[in-house]
Each structure stands twice: as structure tokens, then as C-alpha cells.
């Protein structure tokens, strides 16, 4: 170890980052992990040398908790799919915009929603999606509807909110990757006999796969762990897992259970991440993807 530092002094530059990550990322996760295997004790966050899987057992024995995990996975999947459907064309258009000024403007536009605090944004959604909100209000006044459409306090509202939250994180890596695909590749494909769409499908789409994977991972992880949006826009009809984590800790004061639920959420997230990475590296093991 010391030899590494002696032989390669640039390694020293990584030390602050390593220290930061150890204290603020690795330590908390392991604390959480340890706590999850402790028996429940009201109000205590001290780690004790007693091992139990009671907290995990409890989670899987209550249908409401199991359902919340399924809700989380389902909402995150749908959100990611919607993000990809909206985000890919947007990223493509931005990446293929030749004017750098227009491009910069479009990128700022994509990220403008992130300039506003999430809570404020959610209240913005309430005024749009609510029963007396912009959409329902207008349609009822225009006589198109007699009763408001259920746009909120259901999955639809949550997905709208989650898409809004995760979309910029899917678009950004895609822009970079699509930009790095030389337009000459498409030109060559066209001369070889592809029309515009076929050329995109055979050349640009497969080459942008690394960006798709990265963007999907971001969007999935962000929407899977979101708490505020499902609570404020979804109500209790379809509670997600983070809601129960919060409930266990804040309402019940049972940190051990909250920790166990959090570990389950983390695991579910990691399984999806590893599955995607595995798919990606299998399909593209031998290839350099960027021209």
C-alpha cells in the first residue's frame, strides 16, 4: 500500500475523495445494514451485538409492505419507460443541433425545471392536476367535462411527477453519447441503402446504447427512491416503499425496521442496476462503442 503511494504520487490526489466517500457513503450504508439486523427497539439508533432477521421477516409477512415494493418497482419501471420515450427524441434533437447557441439554450431548457426546489415544483403540479386545477378547471368551464378527471392521488399523478424529476438525468448522458456518434456513419449507411429511419435503427440506436443504459439507470434509481412525489401526488392508494421507511422511523420510532426496509429498497435497486450492466456488457463485451 505504502509502495503504491511512493511509486505513484498521483494516487495521493484521490485521498480526499476516498476519505469523503468512506465517511459519508460507505459508513452510513454499513451502519444501516448493521441496524437492520438488530431487534427493534423504540427510539434507539445504537448498534447492538444481537443478530436477527425479524425485521426482514416482518416486511415479507405483511401484504401491504410487499405490495409497496411492487408499487415502487412498477412506478419506477413505467416512469423510466416514459422518460426514455420522451427523453430519447429530445436528446437526439439536442445532440444533432448544429448551432451551438441553440444547443446550449435547449440544454438549459431541459435543466430549467431543476432550478426550482422539488416541493415548490410539486405544488405547481397540484395547481395543474388538481380537481380545480388548470386542466380540469378549463375543461369543465369549457363544458367538455362534467366531473373532474382523476389526474392526482393516483399512479398517473405520481408518474407525471417522477418523469418530471428524472427526465433531465436521462437526457444528459444521452446527449453526450449521441453527439459522439459521427454523422458520417449515418451518411455511409444511407449510401449503402438505408433510408433515414433504417439508418437510425441500424447505426445510431445501437451506438447510443451506453447512453440509454446510463440514463435508464439514473431515471430508475431516482424514481425508485423518491419519497415526496408519491406522497404528495399519489396519496395512500398506492403507497411506495420509501413511504413505509419514513413511517417506521418517524412515526413509529423503529429505526431497525426502517433500516431493514431501506436495505430491501437498496437491494431491489441494485438488482436492476446489475441486471442492466450485465446485459450491456454481454451484448457489447468486445466492442468499443464510440466511434
Amino acid at each position, binding site marked *: 500500500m505504502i509502495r503504491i503511494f511512493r511509486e505513484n504520487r498521483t494516487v495521493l490526489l484521490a485521498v480526499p475523495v476516498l476519505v469523503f466517500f468512506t465517511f459519508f457513503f460507505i459508513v452510513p450504508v454499513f451502519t444501516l445494514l448493521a441496524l437492520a439486523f438488530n431487534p427493534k427497539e423504540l427510539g434507539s439508533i445504537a448498534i447492538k451485538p444481537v443478530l436477527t432477521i425479524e425485521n426482514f421477516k416482518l416486511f415479507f409477512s405483511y401484504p401491504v409492505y410487499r405490495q409497496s415494493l411492487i408499487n415502487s418497482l412498477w412506478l419506477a419501471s413505467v416512469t423510466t419507460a416514459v422518460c426514455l420515450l420522451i427523453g430519447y427524441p429530445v436528446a437526439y434533437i439536442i445532440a444533432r443541433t448544429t448551432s451551438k447557441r441553440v444547443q446550449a439554450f435547449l440544454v438549459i431548457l431541459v435543466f430549467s425545471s431543476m432550478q426550482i426546489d422539488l416541493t415548490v415544483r410539486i405544488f405547481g403540479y397540484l395547481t395543474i392536476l388538481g380537481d380545480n386545477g388548470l386542466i380540469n378547471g378549463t375543461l369543465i368551464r369549457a363544458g367538455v367535462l362534467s366531473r373532474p378527471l382523476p389526474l392526482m392521488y393516483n399512479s398517473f399523478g405520481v408518474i407525471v411527477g417522477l418523469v418530471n424529476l428524472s427526465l433531465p438525468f436521462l437526457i444528459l448522458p444521452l446527449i453526450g453519447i449521441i453527439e459522439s456518434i459521427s454523422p*458520417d456513419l449515418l*451518411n455511409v449507411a444511407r*449510401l449503402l441503402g438505408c433510408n433515414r429511419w433504417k439508418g437510425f435503427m441500424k447505426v445510431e440506436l445501437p*451506438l447510443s446504447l451506453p447512453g440509454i443504459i446510463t440514463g435508464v439507470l439514473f431515471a430508475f434509481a431516482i424514481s425508485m427512491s423518491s419519497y415526496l412525489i408519491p406522497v404528495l401526488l399519489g396519496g395512500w392508494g398506492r403507497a411506495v416503499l420509501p413511504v413505509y421507511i419514513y413511517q417506521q422511523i418517524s412515526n413509529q420510532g423503529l429505526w431497525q425496521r426502517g433500516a431493514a426496509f431501506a436495505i430491501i429498497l437498496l437491494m431491489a435497486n441494485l438488482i436492476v442496476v446489475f441486471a442492466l450492466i450485465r446485459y450491456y456488457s454481454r451484448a457489447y463485451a468486445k466492442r468499443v462503442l464510440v466511434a
Partner: protein
Amino acid sequence: MSTSALQLVDLTKRYGKLTVVSQVNVSIERGEFFSLVGPSGSGKTTILRMIAGLTTPTSGSILLDGKEITGLPPEQRGLGLVFQNYAIFPHLDVYDNVAFGLRLRKVSEGDVGTKVHDLLDRVGLLGCEKKYPHHLSGGEQQRVALARAVAPNPKVLLLDEPLSALDKNLREEMKFWLRSFQEDLRTTTMYVTHDQSEALSLSDHVLVLNGGRVEQIGTPQEIYESPASMFVADFMGLTNRFSGTVTAIDDNRVQVRLTIGFDVTAIVSKRTFGVGQPVNVFVKPEAISVMESAATTASTVNSFEGSIVQSSYEGALLRHKALVGGHQIDIYAINRSENRFSEGSKVRIYWAPTGVVVIGADDNERVEE
């Protein structure tokens, strides 16, 4: 009359007020190796892109086998294209790259295999089928790009500076290889380059482009021996430029009195000037003989006394700079003992009238619009 493989009629491209390509007219015969040569910004790549359908011409038309293709999308033109950066599909292996165009043409997988095998054999890449582009060298990538472009039997093969990304030795080697590859396949080829020596050594015909206009179209010999304009002469690397006035014309034999006081005789095949008119004269450095000043020549014309001021030894070639009447003249001589002169030695230099190029001063550098 047989139709040409490719014909450009008044082809013009303007971006706003800027004219990039101006009324280019040319016919390329079937099986020909045709070069488009010019400095950067002369519009040669724009012409190539218009032929390929990647850029829309402002006016004029493009005919392929006598049929108008000007408005067709690139995929319906039946052309092959190799870019300067090769543009190999990085997500496909060598085999799939070469097979790409064939598979789009509903060719059976068996026939695709036969064709790909034959082409990889021709380009010397048999056994590389399963390799991915990033495992290939520049020269190999270039040959994959070429095999991919010719696989669907294009009517015309377009090559955009395909050698410029290679290092010098490989470039020389690939140049000869490319020519024999083209001769084997007999595919009509349009080659775009800024390198005049590449254009001269590869082509059946050369088009010299300057500021979007055609300066000259001809065989390499015509272009080099009788450049039609000052631009072509300069671009072909002619040196020893003098200005003068025509004093006598006898059939194709022309007498010029140079402003520095000498009389020079030239034999020209075409002329655009008459007696008394101002002209520019180039003396080809390789046409000049150097001998010791005591030596006598049979000829009385184009023979001058001078001295060697500089001599550089370049292996096969010797480059002398001789001072004649206060004027410096470049001389290229084969490295043989009788051509070696030390700096400062008195010499007699002589050149044959065929080694002189005379261009009317009116054909001087064109005024740009």
C-alpha cells in the same frame, strides 16, 4: 453516343451569397479513375457530397448512366462512398461491416458470404472477419471501408481523401494498391484529394478546382505539361516562374523575352496568346540540365551561364539552386556523379524548349467573385 457513367451539368452550390461550387460541367466515362483536385475550400468535397446526395445543389443536375439523380435520396443512388475517417461501424465486426450493404439488397446469406469472402481476399483481410474496428490499424480500416463500399457493386465509387489519414509510407503503398484494386474491379471512381501528386499518379483524368470553378480538366500529362492557368501551374508545383513578352511565334515554337533580360524558347501545344502579349513562363526544374561551364551544348537556345549557390542531397535526387543573371533557378537532377556540383562552382545550364510552360498573363489568377 454512349452515355457517361457520371455527368455533372452546371452544378452549383451557394450558401447565401457565398458560391462554393460554380457551374461545374464534367463527364466521367465508365471504368475511369477520375480525380477532383484542389486546395482546401475549393469545393471538391461539396461536389462529392452533392453527388452522394448528402448536400442539395442550388442548381444544375447530376446524371448517373444518363439518368437524372439530382433529387434522389442517397440510398436510392447506388453509389459507394469512403470517407477520410473511414466511418467503419464500430458496433459491427469486419464481416458485418462489409455485408451491411449486401444485406439491405435482399441478397441470400450464402451469396453475402461468398461476396464478403471474395472482397476480404482482395483487400488482404481474410481471417479478420470477426475482428472489431478498434482492433484494426488505419490501413486495415481503410480497406474495410473500401470493401464495404464496393460490395453492393456501386455504379460509381466516391473516395474522399481516403489516404490523407495514413502515414507517409503507408500512403505511398496504398496509392498503388488502390489503383490496381480499381483496375481489377473496373468500378468508375471519383477521387477527391488536395494532393496533386496523388491525383497525377492515380488518375485517368483530373479536374483542377479553384474557388468552386473548374480550372482545367485533362489527363495527368495534359495538366502537368500544359497547365491552362497560372493557378494550375502553381498548384501542380511548378516553380522557376518568370514574366515576359512574346517576341515571335513559329507554329508551336514560341520566343519569349523575359523581363530579366533573357530570351527563352518554348514549345507549346496550345496557346492563348499572340506576339507582343505579356506571358508567364515556368521552367520545369526536372527539365534543366547542369554541366560544367566549359562544356558546350549543341543547342544555342535556353542555354545560360551561372553558378551553383546551394545544393541539397536528397538521396535519389539532387536539388540545386543556380544563380543566373542575378536570378535564382531551381534544378532537380538525378543523383549521378556528373550532376554533382559543389556550391559556388561555375556551371552552364540548359533546358529543352519542351520543358518550358508559357501561360498568357490574361489567364492569371482569376478574380474571385
